[in-house]
């Protein structure tokens, strides 16, 4: 078994590498369609193999798989790939997403045909996947760091792929600066660990116990900042709403679906597995950051009308929900409530997995809209459900899933999060319980606002009248794109209806991280009824619920048929208040839809509006332009002042340090060498 899994992983890596080299071969070929199909087919095959191997790895219960280990001549640098349960779980999420996105890409990439170098794109795309695979499986901190850096750089190239657009250049700059600030933190963290353990080996669990308390706390903060930036935790999230919209949609799906989850993987691998959670405040910090990200993320999403920026803010929100689960689990672990810790960790991991599915799917949906309508602006869409029925249905499914509505998977993980908070409320720890209560409120507010936001997204773009010429002439996207989205939607529904399957898969993962077994606490009853944790026997059964729902609908149809007779329908226009014709401008716009919430939370949004009228008379203007903006508090009050100060400081100092005189430079060098020698002597 072990050998088989080992070979499967090797085959998968080989498949990706083959794909990368083939795409390189197509760099200078004019006709790139065949190359595109071959590369994506290789990705599909490789990801299918990796997914199968991961499921096999987790269920078979074999220990850590050492895939390969290459010692290089350079000290510390070892290419060491090994897979334990946690890695396998994240690789599974990666593989499922890559599988669906690659199917989708076959059709999606065709609109770059002749305009872009598809060979180059595919090379970056496959290398990006490989780098994420290595991040999730490297067993050596240096190799992890190299893969992490490669992942960041490759995604940067993908963000600026359409580099002639000015917004993409800005997005790329913000992204690369933020991601390198994060990487710097990680590097210092690794160095602190190395200083005390003299090893870059990651697989040794809880190695952190030899590190003194203070250094461990510093390492935790560094990891939190480093991984938090990649994850898009508020206030480090600012790159996300720039980078996700700029990248091509299949890349956005990968970036939002799995790349930001590698940060969650990092937080679990380095903090829980490596440093070991002993302080309750670590959990509280993560919990508070999670609540902040969840609520603010969804609040900012509501104000967005660029469909991909909106989705990017929802990534911030969902990372917040994951962090709430993770925070609760760290609090519980620190207090040795292993069962509650396990439950919360299960919730966090499941939400990570779910978010990979539905957010990946939503970005694919956004890509489909862009493919058909050539716009990312919701205000220019409308009535697409009739033109693109399959895409519309998929986006509806994903919208319900992300809003935590039954019977989709988002509900299951949020339910588990609620249950873990519930189970974590114990007498005698009033301070902690206060955080739990706030977390419940934050989760509830997040869920409700998310539903409002996705009613807006779905309702404004897919329903009503088309708001632009292109939307009126939209056509359904190619079949491969629909298949890619459809598979993701099916998995979302599957997990939502049969949560026990995925929970069974998660149990060994959480178990290997030191959490109590959640699955053994479940008692399978009538039709997948589901009773977790004896401490709070709440139980849900999505299947029974859906059967009841369907039964009631059928019964209603029957009763109405008997009482009301045959269904007679009369088509007629919507009531237009007596005007001659209904037009698209009479509909509610996305701005109008979210306006009440903007007014309610005006302290947060600080909205401004500008009305400019044209024409001679004030009372009878020829045209009125209404512009409204929402302040992004963190950029305005946190980043911009810092950047401004820094710029001012460098302006002032540059004439003192960078004088242009070679004598001064020689003195600097001399002083530096002297200081270094002194340090070497004294230390």
């Amino acid at each position, binding site marked *: 078994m072990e050998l088989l899994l080992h070979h499967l992983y090797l085959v998968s890596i080989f498949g990706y590498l083959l794909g990368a080299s083939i795409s390189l071969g197509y760099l200078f070929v004019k006709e790139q369609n065949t190359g595109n199909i071959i590369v994506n087919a290789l990705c599909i095959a490789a990801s299918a193999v990796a997914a199968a191997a991961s499921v096999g790895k987790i269920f078979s219960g074999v220990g850590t798989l050492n895939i390969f280990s290459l010692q290089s001549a350079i000290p510390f640098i070892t290419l060491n790939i090994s897979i334990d349960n946690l890695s396998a779980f994240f690789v599974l999420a990666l593989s499922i997403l890559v599988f669906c996105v690659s199917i989708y890409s076959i059709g999606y990439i065709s609109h770059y045909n002749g305009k872009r170098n598809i060979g180059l794109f595919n090379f970056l795309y496959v290398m990006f996947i490989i780098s994420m695979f290595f991040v999730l499986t490297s067993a050596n901190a240096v190799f992890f760091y190299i893969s992490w850096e490669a992942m960041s750089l490759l995604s940067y190239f993908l963000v600026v792929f359409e580099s002639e657009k000015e917004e993409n250049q800005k997005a790329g700059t913000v992204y690369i600066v933020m991601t390198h600030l994060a990487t710097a933190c990680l590097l210092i963290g690794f160095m602190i660990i190395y200083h005390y353990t003299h090893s870059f080996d990651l697989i040794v669990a809880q190695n952190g116990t030899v590190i003194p308390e203070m250094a461990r706390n510093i390492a935790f903060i560094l990891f939190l900042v480093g991984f938090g930036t990649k994850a898009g935790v508020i206030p480090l999230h600012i790159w996300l709403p720039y980078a996700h919209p700029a990248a091509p949609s299949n890349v956005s799906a990968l970036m939002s679906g799995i790349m930001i989850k590698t940060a969650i993987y990092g937080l679990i691998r380095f903090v829980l597995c490596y440093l070991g959670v002993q302080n309750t405040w670590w959990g509280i910090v993560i919990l508070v950051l999670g609540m902040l990200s969840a609520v603010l993320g969804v609040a900012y999403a509501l104000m967005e009308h660029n469909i991909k920026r909106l989705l990017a803010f929802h990534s911030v929100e969902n990372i917040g929900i994951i962090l709430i689960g993770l925070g609760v689990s760290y609090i519980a672990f620190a207090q040795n409530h292993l069962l509650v810790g396990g439950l919360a960790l299960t919730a966090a991991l499941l939400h990570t997995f779910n978010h990979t599915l539905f957010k990946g799917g939503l970005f694919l949906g956004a890509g489909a809209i862009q493919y058909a309508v050539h716009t990312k602006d919701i205000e220019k869409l409308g009535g697409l459900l009739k033109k693109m029925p399959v895409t519309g249905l998929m986006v509806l499914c994903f919208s319900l899933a992300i809003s935590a509505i039954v019977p989709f998977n988002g509900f299951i993980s949020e339910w588990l999060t609620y249950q873990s908070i519930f189970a974590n409320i114990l007498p005698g720890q009033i301070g902690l319980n206060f955080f739990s209560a706030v977390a419940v409120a934050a989760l509830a507010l997040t869920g409700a606002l998310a539903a409002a936001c996705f009613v807006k997204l779905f309702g404004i773009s897919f329903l*009503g*009248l088309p708001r632009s010429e292109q939307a009126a002439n939209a056509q359904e996207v190619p079949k491969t794109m629909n298949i890619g989205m459809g598979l993701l939607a099916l998995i979302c529904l599957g997990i939502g209806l049969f949560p026990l399957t995925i929970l069974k898969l998660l149990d060994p993962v959480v178990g290997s991280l030191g959490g109590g077994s959640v699955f053994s606490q479940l008692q399978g009853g009538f039709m997948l009824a589901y009773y977790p944790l004896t401490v709070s026997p709440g139980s849900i059964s999505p299947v029974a619920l859906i059967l009841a729902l369907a039964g009631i609908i059928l019964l*209603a149809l029957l009763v109405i048929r008997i009482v009301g007779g045959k269904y007679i329908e*009369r088509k007629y226009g*919507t009531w237009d208040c007596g005007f001659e014709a209904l037009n698209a401008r009479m509909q509610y716009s996305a701005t109008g839809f979210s306006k009440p919430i903007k007014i309610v939370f005006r302290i947060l949004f600080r909205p401004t509006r500008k009305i400019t009228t044209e024409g001679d008379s004030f009372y009878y203007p020829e045209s009125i332009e209404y512009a409204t903006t929402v302040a992004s508090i963190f950029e305005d009050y946190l980043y911009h002042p810092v950047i401004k100060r820094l710029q001012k400081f460098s302006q002032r100092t540059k004439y003192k340090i960078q004088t242009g005189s070679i004598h001064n430079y020689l003195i600097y060098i001399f002083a530096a060498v002297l200081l270094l020698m002194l340090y070497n002597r004294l230390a």
Partner: protein
Amino acid sequence: MKDCTPGRIGNEAMNSIAYIIIQLIVTLLAAPLVGGLIKKVKALTQKRKGAPVLQMYFDLYKLLQKTSVVSEVSSWIYKAAPYIVFATALTGALLVPVSTKIVPVLIPGDFIMLVSILALGRFFMMAAALDTASTFGGMGSSREAMISSLIEPSILVALFTVGLLSGSTSLPRMMQTVQVTGFPFAHPVYMMVGLALLIIIIAETSRIPVDDPSTHLELTMVHEAMILEYSGRHLALLEYGAAVKQLVFVTLFVNIFIPHDQLIPFMGFGAVILSLLLYLLKVVLMAVVIALIEVNTVKFKLFSIPNLAALSFILAFLGILQFFILGGYHV
């Protein structure tokens, strides 16, 4: 079907089917009554005779006979929404037992699921309102989005607190707990949460001061604006769904805060019937209370509703804090 109490009949499946049937019949029959009663009480306080209490049944029957007018603009969402709204409300009703003498077994679900299933209905209703391209639909949908996102946190925090008191998130369990602990309003936690839930009921069931169910003035309406384009059987389903949802919230409130089953010491079929009668009495009482609140307040302007929602949230949150400080009882 002589005996419906759990454990006595010996057959769990039979028991759950019996439960489902009783629950469905009681809900379906009582739901339109609540609205009728509220209207009647309002009329009486205004020295009018008012429509008959059973008026809604006649309306529903009449609507079912009518042709449905469907907007040319709309898609399948528009036609599916009434069925989904009705079915989600009724499925929600299956999660909230009308009497603890009959314990639900078929659909395991708790209050988080109840909120989620009602959110499913609301999602479709808000989407359908946008589907006809009518301004009124958009207006109602947008307002509903605001109100629901402000009210939902306080529902969850309030019910979470009640759940903590009983040690479970399951609704039947919460209701059984108060049967044992006695009159809940004597307990400060319940007192806070009860007041919070009272506000929630008014907001969730589109009542004055949050929404005015009897008007079609576009400036005031929320729920009515969303369903403005509907007619015929679609409208009937939506109205019925709204009534069922109202009853779900009323049931939730009365069965948690006015426990009655400990008044019936004996078991068996008679106990179930007696319990149901007492339940209906409580519903009537609640309808009168809601009517009196409606008579004595005026419709708030839209942007005063957040204050009301905040009040309810603060009450619920104070409830949970009191629970932490005072400590609770798990039964």
